[in-house]
């Protein structure tokens, strides 16, 4: 077959003149600079004392390099009208919210994908379609009912606590956020796993059935071990989306239980007093750090996740 021929591996002979290549590289580098610049400015601003920021050029390197803004952001800055100083508390809130939400929505998505592809039933396409559409709704259209329901759940939780002396977590803002993120993440996680399992060899499942394995045994012993790539993609995608969410966080978990993004926004948009740009930037970088690190470490899975969500099938 010609495909083994090394000649065919080349898609086109490079016929670009030197001028063209200079233009191409030039454009690419120029854009790279534009893309990096905002982040670079953020980092540099966060390392400058305030007078350097307000008095100087944002592109200039820090003259009096200081990590004080970072310390401030983490433990001392005033965030809106909250009593907790610094953003470390909110950082923790975000973690407490993200971890359960990612785990639950991923697991459910995997099970759903498994059912939708290997245990087809009449109407499975419609069910999938309906769950898929859930990915695209604007959250504004469900925020009011959600607020009402969460409020009711909170009252219910208070009654339960009075009755049994034990708090089931109803009404706890973090628990609310976990619920919200799980529900609205189901569409995406199901999509990812469904597309992945669609091309997963059904023969493996049938072989396991012949061997006498039950539904959950097949899931645990056959599907999951072979799903590492999509699990990573889904976890990264969900982690990024949920960590970066703002709308749900600001609506359902204001105050001390707010997640990182809400705290950041409150910090940056305080209208009273002097604006401490350097502290704001430090806080922003701290907020962005987890997802950025995930991206640097596992970038290709990140992209794969986007593509899986975007180009269906």
């Amino acid at each position, binding site marked *: 077959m010609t495909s083994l021929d090394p000649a065919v591996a080349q898609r086109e002979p490079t016929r670009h003149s030197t001028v063209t290549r200079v233009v191409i590289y030039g454009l690419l580098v120029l854009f790279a600079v534009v893309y990096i610049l905002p982040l670079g400015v953020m980092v540099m601003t966060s390392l400058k004392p305030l007078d350097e920021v307000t008095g100087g050029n*944002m592109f200039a390197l820090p003259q009096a390099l200081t990590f004080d803004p970072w310390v401030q952001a983490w433990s001392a800055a005033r965030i809106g009208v909250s009593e907790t100083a610094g953003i470390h508390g909110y950082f923790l809130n975000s973690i407490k919210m993200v971890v359960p939400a990612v785990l639950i929505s991923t697991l459910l998505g995997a099970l759903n994908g498994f059912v939708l592809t290997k245990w087809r039933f009449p109407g499975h396409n419609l069910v999938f379609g309906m769950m898929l559409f859930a990915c695209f709704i*604007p959250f504004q259209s469900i925020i009011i009912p959600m607020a009402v329901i969460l409020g009711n759940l909170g009252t219910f939780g208070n009654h339960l606590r009075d009755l049994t002396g034990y708090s089931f977590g109803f009404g706890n803002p973090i628990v609310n956020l976990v619920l919200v993120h799980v529900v609205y993440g189901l569409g995406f996680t199901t999509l990812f796993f469904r597309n992945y399992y669609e091309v997963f060899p059904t023969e493996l499942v049938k072989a396991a059935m012949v061997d006498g394995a039950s539904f959950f045994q097949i899931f645990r012993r056959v599907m999951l071990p072979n799903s590492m790539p999509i699990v990573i993609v889904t976890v990264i995608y969900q982690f990024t989306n949920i960590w970066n969410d*703002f*709308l749900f966080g600001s609506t359902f978990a204001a105050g001390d239980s707010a997640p990182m993004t809400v705290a950041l926004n409150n910090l940056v948009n305080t209208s009273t007093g002097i604006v401490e740009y350097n502290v704001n930037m430090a806080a*922003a970088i701290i907020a962005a750090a987890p997802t950025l690190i995930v991206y640097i470490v596992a970038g290709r899975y990140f992209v794969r996740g986007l593509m899986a969500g*975007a180009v269906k099938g």
Partner: protein
Amino acid sequence: MKISLVGSATMDRAQPASLRAKAQAWLPRIVLAPSFVLVLIFVYGFNLWTFFLSFTNSKAFATTRLVGLANYQRLWDWTFASDPPSNWHTALVNMAVFGLLYVVLCLALGLLLAILLDQKIRGEGILRPIYLYPLALSFIVTGTAWKLFLDPRIGLEKAVHDWGWTSFHFDWVVTPSKMIYCVAIAGIWQSSGFVMAMFLAGLRGVDGEIIKAAQIDGASTFATYRRIIIPMMRPVFLSAIIILTHLAIKSYDLVLSVTGKNPGGAAELPSTFMYSFTFTRNQMAVGSTSAVIMLMTIAAIMVPYLYSELRQKRS
């Protein structure tokens, strides 16, 4: 002896098997059910609820007093109230401006970068992550960064002044009428990398022999891209437009963080309109109506697309 053993074995399994088998047959659906029910309630149910609210007279709290299409009528009237512009009118205009700039420029930039990266250049391993990393950031972080960057007193305008060009003006981020453009700039910076990734994958899927055929036909590189490769990218364009449009309609975090407290409502978008009318101005019914309109717009784009995609899969 052998025969009877086999006989008894099958017989032993006959009775409990049917019950167990039935349970096993229904198990997949039972497993799927919770998720499906959750989606039914929290997505479709809630949407219906909001839809219902849009027909009521709710103010700070939900009421069940129906007022027919009054809210829709109000929004309709406000759409055309341009002098002075009503919030809704501003929101729609901004939506159109922002949406158009965002989608078109993301497509253009994404396509350009993808074509450049596709030219067998070295260093793609470094360049591609650089174009993509903004996607990992929260919209709040993006807005915060750009708000600083475009700030006339400490950002771009000041920096350019320091370099000598003292008549340079770029105070758009604090000029109410120009704020939406800054939101667009930040949004394009964040999302164009994603569009680039989609186009790059599409370009790389082009059969090499088609390029060879075009070479033999005498097409220049430019003509090959214009006449053959870019038209082949039509499905990617479609996917990208769908995703970008729906992101644009949903934009909320980005506007908030770039414009701060949205002075005067100049950078109002339907998403911020909904929020302020529902939670700040205690006009829940009007807010619900705007949410319903947002939903309908998205549905009008997504439902035909999803339907055609899923149908193709079956055939």
